């Protein structure tokens, strides 16, 4: 005989279940899942919460909780209810989220999600059915199985040396700061049933008021897998389970807890444009000019020499001048050993490969990168390097220039800005056809917010540009 439940908060009949007996639940006779459903349903109805509620059905015997709860319903993967609940609650501030889970689901496969959601204080009411076994899959050992309890996977009884000790979820969660309410209840006599009803209501009131995380552990037996009749099941709960898992309210901060309000999305374009600084950092759209030469630049040096931002400043300038441009940093094994390099491609049409294999211009800031990349400069290309590197045998057919970058930077008032000095020399000799004023704008945008840094870099740029204009590599 299947169990019949009829109460407010639950559907009158259960068409989702299909079959002929649409008023009977799918739970086994004598199983207390029905009692818990009833208590939750009544509380939801009495508190007027059904329209706001989303019940999450887990994987386990209560996988079909959505046959019964007259609320919004979602069925989820094994153990993931707390994460799904997080997603719902963060998205819909007013939703009342209920997660109904068994011990395999919540305390084994979903333990991480369970603890992390509790620790974040998500607005979820968790109803945790501790029946000491995996019910749906046929009575295997659960994390909550009692020491010595026989299950399909502990046929000689749970041996703590093999399988550890029963996991006390309510106590574990009470180690965390965020949860508002934590209780353990059972239905093993009328007085305990009344306490259970109160705990369930409390957990839902906390959700009604948006105050945060509430956890109610409910002790029950699994008469089918434990092969007990109803009386034996009740005795198992009151005599054995309650001895291991003491009943009571472990925490109630519902009085002090404040309503937690999640943000509302702002979809306005003005908001987004402002957030992304389109007012101050804005370039014209790139102009198609197939006659313009495509120039590939490689920049390389030690990590701290600013080669990556040197490339970004050049790319910014090209972008601000309405060119097509790409910047790509080396990444992966090349990055090891403290060297860095990037490629910048400037063009009058959409850039093909952003990876610079053959460079029209190479900027080398240290010896290893000079030696590594000198051979990649195209015939007739330009190779400029940091003069501090010293003697260097340049490849034939390439225009070469040693730049006293550190001195230029020092003279300009910013000794660390050798990279900006190189940009100045590139402006003079790189052959990119980008106006000097646009370089200065790009420098200002790049260092925006730091006025003195902008000034120093502008000075270094100008000095180096003038120096460069006098050279004939």
């Amino acid at each position, binding site marked *: 005989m299947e169990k019949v439940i009829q109460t407010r908060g639950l559907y009158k009949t259960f068409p989702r279940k299909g079959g002929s007996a649409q008023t009977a639940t799918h739970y086994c006779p004598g199983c207390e899942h029905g009692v818990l459903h009833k208590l939750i349903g009544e509380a939801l109805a009495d508190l007027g919460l059904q329209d706001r509620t989303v019940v999450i059905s887990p994987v386990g015997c209560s996988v079909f909780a959505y046959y019964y709860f007259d609320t*919004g319903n979602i069925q989820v993967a094994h153990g993931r209810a707390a994460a799904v609940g997080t997603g719902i609650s963060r998205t819909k501030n007013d939703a009342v989220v209920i997660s109904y889970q068994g011990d395999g689901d919540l305390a084994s496969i979903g333990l991480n999600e369970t603890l992390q959601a509790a620790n974040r204080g998500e607005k979820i009411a968790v109803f945790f059915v501790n029946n000491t076994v995996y019910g749906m899959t046929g009575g295997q050992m659960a994390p909550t199985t009692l020491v010595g309890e026989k299950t399909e996977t502990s046929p000689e009884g749970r041996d703590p040396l093999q399988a550890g000790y029963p996991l006390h979820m309510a106590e574990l969660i009470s180690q965390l700061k965020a949860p508002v309410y934590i209780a353990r209840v059972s239905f093993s006599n009328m007085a305990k049933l009344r306490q259970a009803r109160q705990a369930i209501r409390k957990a839902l009131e906390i959700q009604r008021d948006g105050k945060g995380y509430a956890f109610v552990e409910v002790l029950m037996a699994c008469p089918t897998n434990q092969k007990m009749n109803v009386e034996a099941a009740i005795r198992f709960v009151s005599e054995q389970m309650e001895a291991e898992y003491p009943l009571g309210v472990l925490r109630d901060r519902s009085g002090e807890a404040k309503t937690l309000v999640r943000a509302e999305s702002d979809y306005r374009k003005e908001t987004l444009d402002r957030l992304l600084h389109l007012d101050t950092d804005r370039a014209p*759209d790139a102009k198609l000019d197939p006659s313009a030469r495509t120039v590939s630049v490689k920049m390389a040096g030690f990590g701290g020499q600013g080669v990556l931002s040197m490339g970004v400043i050049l790319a910014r300038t090209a972008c601000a001048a309405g060119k097509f441009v790409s910047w790509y940093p080396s990444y992966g094994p090349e990055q090891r050993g403290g060297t860095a390099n990037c490629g910048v491609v400037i063009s009058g049409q959409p850039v093909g490969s952003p990876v610079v294999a053959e460079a029209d211009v190479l900027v080398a800031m240290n010896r290893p990168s000079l030696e590594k990349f000198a051979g990649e400069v195209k015939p007739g290309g330009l190779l400029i390097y940091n003069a501090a590197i010293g003697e260097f045998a340049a490849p034939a057919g390439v225009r070469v220039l040693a730049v006293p970058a550190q001195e230029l930077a020092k003279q300009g008032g910013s000794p660390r800005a050798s990279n900006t000095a190189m940009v100045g020399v590139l402006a003079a000799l790189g052959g990119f056809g980008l106006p000097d004023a646009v370089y200065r704008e790009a420098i200002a945008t790049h260092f925006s917010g730091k006025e003195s840094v902008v000034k120093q870099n502008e000075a270094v740029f100008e000095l180096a540009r003038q120096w460069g204009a006098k050279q004939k590599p």
Partner: protein
Amino acid sequence: MATQLVKGNTAVIIGALYAGCDSFFGYPITPASEILHEAAKKFPAAGRRMVQAESEEAAINMVFGAGATGRRTMTASSGPGISLKQEGVSYLSGAQVPAVIVDIMRAGPGLGNIGPEQGDYNQVVKGGGHGNYRNLVLAPASVQEMCDFTRKAFELAQKWRMVVFVLADGVLGQMIEPLRFPEASVAPETDTSWAVDGTAVTRPNVVTSIFLNFDQQEAFNRQLQEKYAAVEAAEQDSEDYRMEDADIGLVAYGISARIAQGAVDAARAEGIRAGLFRPKTLYPFPKDALNAFVAKGGKQLVSVEMSNGQMRDDIKLAVECRCPVHLANRLGGNLITRDEVLAKVREAAKKA
């Protein structure tokens, strides 16, 4: 119109914001972490929600919850994290909950390394989770497309009630290019016919992927396949480069396509008639356009990919062996070079 110089990973978040994405759930992994960082900076400032999840499994299930409410939501990760999300992707597909996932591929298998690779093709395009489902897969090849395809992914996810992947690689994530900003922002509507969002109108709804009855489960599976057939008819997308008179068609997506484009120019300079066919959707694979090329006289195809022929299999299926399909590839985090592709093209040209 406004243009700004932007990194690929940032462009994803820009696309998501203008598309009206309400929430981002992620877990750090190089080279996708920057997307998470950008979401952390920009989502809350626009009232959007961002949670650093405890794992990729948790992140995808947060996406399941957020998506089930009918709002736009996303996550981003890379190979090892995508593997972990597959259970959730299967559930999303079974429950027909729309979601957007960005995969910035790195080298594998196992922990591999953080170099660029395209080895997630099969697990994303073919579906790495259990069951008869498909993901819609968009393959950007520029910073512009990182933004535009992310925006489009939200539209398609909602239109088809499917998981839509944006499948990119470490290079696209790291590179900087000018981005033309979206001209409008979207304030999406909730489809209350199926969503469950804790309101009176959606109270009768249920989001689930179970049918205990085998026939019902079969009927549902058949319905899914009909949907996928409609997706295949409607959403194939690709781009041609110098394909009009080509004998040899290179097929490449993502950064490989950018590199292959250089190889096409180099081959043309040597008098080899090569062209580039760039799939913008990987599922559905743009087989109609590819077959048109073969029907028009295309003689050979070369799959240019940073994986072990995973895409070549799809090319072969698409052209049903009507022409040879060669493979030019690198693995392990190494970018394929223009010259390596060119060498393959020359080899093919000799065979012709």
